[in-house]
C-alpha cells in the first residue's frame, strides 16, 4: 500500500488557482521528484502536505489513514494538525535554522519539547541521537557551531538533520539547493542521495534535473498548477511526451 496518497488537491489564493486536481501516490522507501518552473505550484503542494497551507479541495492519506479531507471538517481540527504534521518533515529552501541555537540544539530542540510532553526519551539520549545525525551529515565537528558560523551547505545539512530527528514518514525538500552557491550544492545533494540509498521516503522539489533523474524513483512535472506528466524519471526527463515538458526541459538542456 502507498505510504502517501494525494487525491484531487486544489488550492486557490484569492482568485488565482495555484493547484488544480493534483493526485499522486508514493510508495514507502521511494523518492519522488517534482520539477517545473517557478510559480508552477510545486512549493505550494509541499506546503499543503505540511499543513502550512490548507487545500480547498481534495484529500491526503498517510499509511491508509485520511489525515486531511477538505470536505470533512473532522479531519481539520487545529489540535490534531500538530500531530499530523509530524508525518512529514520539511527542509526549506532558506534553511530557516534557529540562529540562537547551535547546530546540535537546532536538531534536538523539537524532539526535546515533544519528549517533555509525552515522557520517554531523556535529554542525553536525544543529544546522542542528534550527534549521530550530524555525524551522518558529515558535521560531527560542527555540532557546537551557531548557524551564522556555518556555510550555506552546512546549514542546509543541519536543517536536514533537524528534520530527520523527528523521524518523519516522508521527508520533503523544497528546492534544497536553490539558495546555495553552485560550489556548495554538491555536498547537500550527496546527503540527499545517501538518504535515498537508505530508502528514506522523500519528496524533492528541485531544479537539478540530473539529480532528479538519478535519485528519484518517480518524477512529476508541474506547470500552471497541474501535473502535466508523471512517471519513471528516465522516461519523463529523457523522453518527455508532453509538449510543455519538452519545452521546460529544453531550457535546461540549452542552458
Amino acid at each position, binding site marked *: 500500500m502507498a505510504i502517501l496518497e494525494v487525491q484531487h488537491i486544489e488550492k486557490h489564493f484569492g482568485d488565482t488557482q495555484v493547484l488544480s486536481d493534483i493526485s499522486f501516490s508514493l510508495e514507502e522507501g521511494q523518492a519522488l521528484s517534482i520539477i517545473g518552473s517557478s510559480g508552477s505550484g510545486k512549493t505550494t503542494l509541499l506546503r499543503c502536505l*505540511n499543513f*502550512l497551507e490548507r487545500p480547498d479541495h481534495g484529500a491526503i492519506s498517510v499509511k491508509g489513514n485520511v489525515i486531511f479531507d477538505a470536505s470533512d471538517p473532522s479531519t481539520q481540527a487545529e489540535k490534531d494538525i*500538530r500531530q499530523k504534521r509530524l508525518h512529514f518533515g520539511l527542509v*526549506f529552501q532558506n534553511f*530557516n535554522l534557529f*540562529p*540562537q541555537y547551535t547546530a546540535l540544539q537546532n536538531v534536538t*530542540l523539537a524532539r526535546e519539547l515533544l519528549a517533555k510532553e509525552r515522557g520517554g526519551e531523556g535529554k542525553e539520549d536525544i543529544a546522542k541521537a542528534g550527534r549521530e545525525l550530524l555525524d551522518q551529515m558529515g558535521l560531527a565537528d560542527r555540532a557546537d557551531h551557531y548557524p*551564522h558560523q556555518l556555510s550555506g551547505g552546512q546549514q542546509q545539512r543541519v536543517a536536514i538533520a*533537524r528534520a530527520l530527528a523527528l523521524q518523519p514518514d516522508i521527508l520533503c525538500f523544497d528546492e534544497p539547493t536553490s539558495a546555495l552557491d553552485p560550489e556548495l550544492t554538491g555536498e547537500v545533494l550527496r546527503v540527499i542521495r545517501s538518504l535515498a540509498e537508505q530508502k528514506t521516503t522523500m519528496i524533492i522539489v528541485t531544479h537539478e534535473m540530473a539529480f532528479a533523474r538519478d535519485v528519484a524513483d518517480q518524477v512529476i512535472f508541474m506547470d500552471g498548477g497541474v501535473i502535466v506528466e508523471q512517471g519513471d524519471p528516465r522516461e519523463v526527463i529523457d523522453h518527455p511526451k508532453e509538449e510543455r515538458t519538452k519545452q521546460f526541459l529544453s531550457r535546461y538542456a540549452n542552458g
Partner: protein
Amino acid sequence: MFSFFASTEFQTVLSALNTGFVKTLQLFFVTLVGAVPLGLVISFGSMSRIPPLRWLTKTVVWMVRGTPLVLQIIALYYVPGLKGFHIWSGGESGRFTAVAVAFVINYACYFSEIYRGGIQGVPVGQQEAGLVLGMTKRQIFFKITLLQMIKRIVPPMSNEIITLVKDTSLARVVALQEVIWMGESFMKGNQGYAGLVWPLFFTAVYYLAFSGIATILLGKLEKKLEYFH
C-alpha cells in the same frame, strides 16, 4: 572647594536629594516592571486577527502616544477626584500610585510598538520551521521568536529606558517628591535653607550617573546577544 562638600549645607541637600532620587528610582523600576509585560499584551492586541480588538488597541496606543505624558499624569491624578471618585489615597502614596499608573500605561504603549516591530521583524520562516517540527504556537514564541525579538529591540528599548529615567521628573507636576522636586524645594525653603539654586542643577549629576550605568548595562546586554545573527 572640598570644605563645601563637607559643609552642613551640602550634606543636608545631598541627603534630601538622595531621598528624592530613591523616589525617582522607584517610579523608574515600577514603570519598567509594569510596562515591559503590559507592552507585550498591547502588541499582541495590535497584531490581533480580530479586527475590533486590533482597532481598539491601535486607538488607545494612538491616544496615549499622541498626547503629552504630563497631561496624562494630571488627568489621571485629578479627574477621578473631580468626578467624585476618590480612587487615589491622599498624600504622597496616592500621588505615587496615580503617577505610576500613568507611566506604566504610557510606556507600555511605546514599548508595544517596539515589540511589534521586533516580532514582525523575525522572518516568517522561523515560525514555519517551528510549526513543521510540531511545536505549538506558544513553544514557537518562547523558544524561537522571543530571543530573536529581544535582540532586535534592545537598541530602541535602550533609548526608551534612558528617556524614562528623565521622564520621571514629569511626576513633579503633581508634586511627587522625586529628585527635581527636592532640588527645587531648596529655592522655596526647606530645612532652613531658601534661595539655593545649585541643588536643582545638581540633580543632573544623579540623572547622568544613572543613565550612564543604564547605558553600560544595556550595552552589555547587546554584546551578550551578539553570539547569534
